[in-house]
């Protein structure tokens, strides 16, 4: 009997073990959620800002230019996420603009998981990752197969390690900010900013019939056209520190600048001009007074497809927005620049960036309504992007400085709604979106400011109209690879959100809204929140990437934006309708939209990314060592003078970790003062080949620059230590140096 009992117990034990294994293995993901830390108990707002450096190793694909996307061989601007955590007794949210082309739900949920494990009480519904839409950040972290497929870049594929790297850095930054929550005040400001952008899809835009509403883009464009024809433009003074026409809030329409080349055309008027800033201030004490509070962070929202650099780029950088936030941080931060710098140099440095080692104001720039809005450049290049970024950065700083009312207590609320797009009801009478997402062939041809070689195919050009429109997708010619669409090709679920802070609301869109779509979203939200919120900022590219939302009037033209509107011609109506419903919920009214999931309850997420590829380079162990000084020579590249030296190649992963590799510019006869480093706006690191890297300093020199004639050194720090021989910056026109 004993052996039999033992055997029975053994079988029971085995069964229990199997059951445990079954349960464990059937769980989609195993996570060890720590007990959540409480939000510090304090009256009024709490806030904190932090920066997460998300610059990855070299040799990952740059995402955003489709098949033209190059493989990164260097870093021009380090990629960052600026993190703003805001809390009060009622709620807590994390607003996280990032130097990424777009978010993915895989990334959003991975960050959320890490926060849960760390006990940070910011769940997926409270986390808003907003991509700046730089096309010079890595890919490989998208669960949607088409975003990792053969035409996503020149080295496609999904790599879990890239995803986890980004998630770890972002979650780490959020954790830091949460730990630093302190009594705060908040303040909003908003203005119209003209002259930086124009509508790149003006022909489809004109299909949006003006309703006559004040401030409507179509109405403004029509007025601009009339003004141009009548040539009755008047002049306005430029905003301080900018070359822009900044129009006061509430003005009836755009006022062209004095310079004829900046006159507002119809296409320039056919944009969303709103620049919004949310200032976060550290209170001087625990009372609810904002007197003496100091600016610690600024979240700005402005709509611009920020591709100032052409698609031949092969460096990581934040493009126009990357330059803009550095300029804004430099101007808003105090004390000026590096503390040990001479005053003149410190002032000059503030024009480019803040000293990251000193306590400084953190500026994040979320992209707004930018689907059809291009930067108004002379041509795409790094210097043009820098110039544009400088103008935008100054505008952000000016607007922040003009924030009037700050408040220590007020509303803080968030609504996040995971919408399912396939067959989504868009009009309340059972008309639905398409069942499958499709990308049109015109999207593969690229936008006006990022054309691809696929435009050799007639069908890949804007405006291609098939003889036989498809049933659901209308004039769109779906781009496929010989297979029927899969539910894993593109995201099916994407969240929209409303974040209310004080008397302002940010509406978050999981993609790129064209000017009129964004305007309709804003009006839908504002109508529901009339009398409650003075500011409605629309931020795109948040938490998921459903590409574009062209209006149903723009869609049939099948320009790039319409071809990238995934769920068919009525996607914009679906979006606007649900924003109206969400805003109704926020204002305590009845939500008329049925069929979607629950608000603030993240939908189940079951990713199945393909193709899997190993894109993360191998780690290499390099012993610390020092090198003899090298010569630095002046070289003009891309129209910009720069001072550069060539060093032996380092492991590709080094660019992701400043503790093993960093670059600085030193000033002075003995190089005793650090003027800038690779976190600023002036240093480029580039792999020349398998054996050599080039370090280049590109100061933004003005003719009477205080740095002219000064003596400098380039310094490499980390595992490799090297200080160059001294060199002088000569600001007079230098003879053209022979190129290697």
């Amino acid at each position, binding site marked *: 009997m004993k052996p039999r009992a033992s055997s029975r117990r053994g079988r029971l034990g085995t069964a229990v073990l199997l059951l445990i294994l079954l349960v464990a293995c059937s769980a989609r993901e195993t996570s060890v959620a720590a007990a959540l830390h409480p939000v510090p108990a304090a009256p009024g707002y709490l806030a904190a800002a932090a920066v997460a450096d998300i610059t990855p190793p070299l040799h990952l694909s740059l995402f955003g230019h489709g098949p033209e996307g190059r493989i990164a061989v260097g870093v021009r601007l380090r990629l960052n996420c600026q993190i703003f955590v805001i809390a009060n007794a009622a709620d807590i949210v994390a607003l996280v603009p990032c130097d990424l082309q777009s978010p993915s739900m895989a990334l959003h949920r991975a960050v959320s998981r890490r926060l849960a494990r760390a006990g940070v009480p910011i769940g997926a519904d409270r986390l808003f990752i907003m991509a700046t839409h730089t096309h010079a950040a890595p890919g490989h972290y998208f669960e949607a197969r088409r975003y990792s497929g053969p035409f996503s870049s020149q*080295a496609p594929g999904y790599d879990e390690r890239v995803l986890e790297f980004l998630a770890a850095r972002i979650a780490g930054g959020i954790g830091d900010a949460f730990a630093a929550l302190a009594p705060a005040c908040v303040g909003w400001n908003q203005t119209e900013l003209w002259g930086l952008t124009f509508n790149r899809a003006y022909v489809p835009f004109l299909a949006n019939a003006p309703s006559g509403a004040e401030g409507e883009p179509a109405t403004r464009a029509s007025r601009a056209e009339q003004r141009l024809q009548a040539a009755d433009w008047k002049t306005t003074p430029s905003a301080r520190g900018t070359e822009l026409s900044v129009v006061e809030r509430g003005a009836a329409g755009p006022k062209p600048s004095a310079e004829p080349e900046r006159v507002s055309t119809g296409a320039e008027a056919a944009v969303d001009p709103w620049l919004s800033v949310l200032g976060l201030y550290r209170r001087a004490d625990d009372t609810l007074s904002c007197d003496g509070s100091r600016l610690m962070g600024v979240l700005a929202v402005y709509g611009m497809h920020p591709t100032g650099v052409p698609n031949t780029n092969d460096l990581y950088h934040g493009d126009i927005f990357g330059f803009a936030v550095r300029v804004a941080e430099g101007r808003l931060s105090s004390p000026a620049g590096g503390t040990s710098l001479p005053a003149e140099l410190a002032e000059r440095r503030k024009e480019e960036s803040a000293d990251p080692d000193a306590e400084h104001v953190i500026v994040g720039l979320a992209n707004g309504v930018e689907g059809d809005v291009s930067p108004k450049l002379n041509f795409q290049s790094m210097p043009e992007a820098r110039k544009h970024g400088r103008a935008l950065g100054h505008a952000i700083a000016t607007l922040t400085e003009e924030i009037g009312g700050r408040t220590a207590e007020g509303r803080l609320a968030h609504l996040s709604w995971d919408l399912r797009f396939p067959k989504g009801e868009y009009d309340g009478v059972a008309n639905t979106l398409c069942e499958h997402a499709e990308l049109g062939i015109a999207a593969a041809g690229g936008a006006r400011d990022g054309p691809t070689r696929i435009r050799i195919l007639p069908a890949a050009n804007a405006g291609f109209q098939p003889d036989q429109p498809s049933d659901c997708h209308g004039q769109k010619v779906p781009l*496929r690879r010989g297979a029927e669409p899969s539910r894993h090709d593109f995201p099916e679920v994407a969240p929209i959100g409303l974040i209310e802070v004080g008397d302002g609301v940010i509406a978050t869109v999981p993609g790129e809204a064209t000017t009129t779509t964004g305007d309709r979203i804003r009006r839908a939200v504002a109508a529901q929140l009339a009398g409650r919120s003075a500011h409605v900022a629309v931020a795109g590219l948040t938490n998921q990437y459903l590409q574009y939302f062209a209006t149903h009037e723009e869609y049939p033209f099948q320009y790039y934006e319409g071809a990238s509107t995934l769920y068919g011609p009525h996607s914009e109506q679906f979006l606007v309708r649900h924003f109206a419903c969400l805003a109704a919920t926020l204002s305590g009214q009845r939500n008329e939209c049925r069929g979607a999931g629950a608000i603030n309850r993240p939908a189940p997420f079951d990713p199945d990314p393909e193709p899997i590829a190993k894109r993360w380079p191998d780690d290499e162990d390099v012993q610390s060592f020092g090198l003899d000084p090298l010569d630095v020579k002046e070289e003009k590249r891309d129209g910009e003078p720069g001072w550069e030296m060539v060093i032996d190649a380092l492991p590709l992963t080094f660019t992701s970790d400043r503790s093993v590799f960093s670059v600085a510019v030193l000033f002075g006869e003995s190089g005793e003062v650090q003027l800038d480093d690779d976190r600023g706006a002036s240093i480029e690191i580039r792999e020349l080949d398998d054996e050599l890297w080039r370090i280049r300093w590109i100061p933004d020199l003005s003719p009477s620059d205080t740095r002219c004639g000064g003596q400098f050194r380039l310094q490499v720090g980390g595992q490799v230590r090297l200080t160059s021989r001294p060199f002088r910056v000569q600001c007079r026109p230098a003879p053209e140096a022979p190129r290697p």
Partner: protein
Amino acid sequence: MKGALPMRLLALAAALTGCGLQATTGPTWANERHPVALVFGGTLQSHRFNGPTFGGRVGMAVDDGLIPRQGFVHMGYDLRAIPGRLVIEPRLDLGLGGPIARAYSGVGAYLGGAASGRVRLWGVDDSKTEFNIIGSHLDLVLAARGGAWAPPEGSSSTRLDWEASVELGVRVAIISDVPSGPAGRVQAPVTPAAEEGGE
């Protein structure tokens, strides 16, 4: 590391498009005999539109240990009888070799005609408005052929050898819309302003 995979795929798609590989088998009537033939071939065909075809194939008798006995080049025309479902392809055959059932002492010549019908079993539906960078499909093929072999020069007989066959098989084709996508054109869109004469 700096390879341009998408562009290579695009070039490959353009090069391979319309390349159909076909295998058919069926009875052949050649003089008094009617052995079973096995025919392998390849055809360049247009995708999505009616258009000319060109290709070649090799025939062998199943009973003879699959030794190639005859080779053909063919030129034809694809007619989409039911777009996306059924294609009819009449064609002209020129051949070298000999009848499937009789060995010449040299190389004979063949002239004949054929017609085939292809029913789409699987793959890209070329009647739909979509742009496939690359794709494939599988067709069921029913083919009928008839023609005459002329014996080699110097043969004792100058009699023509008539040959006909009915074959059933499959064709696998790699297709792409890169050389010829769905019908349409880039049109100058009509804007409201233009309609009103404003532009």
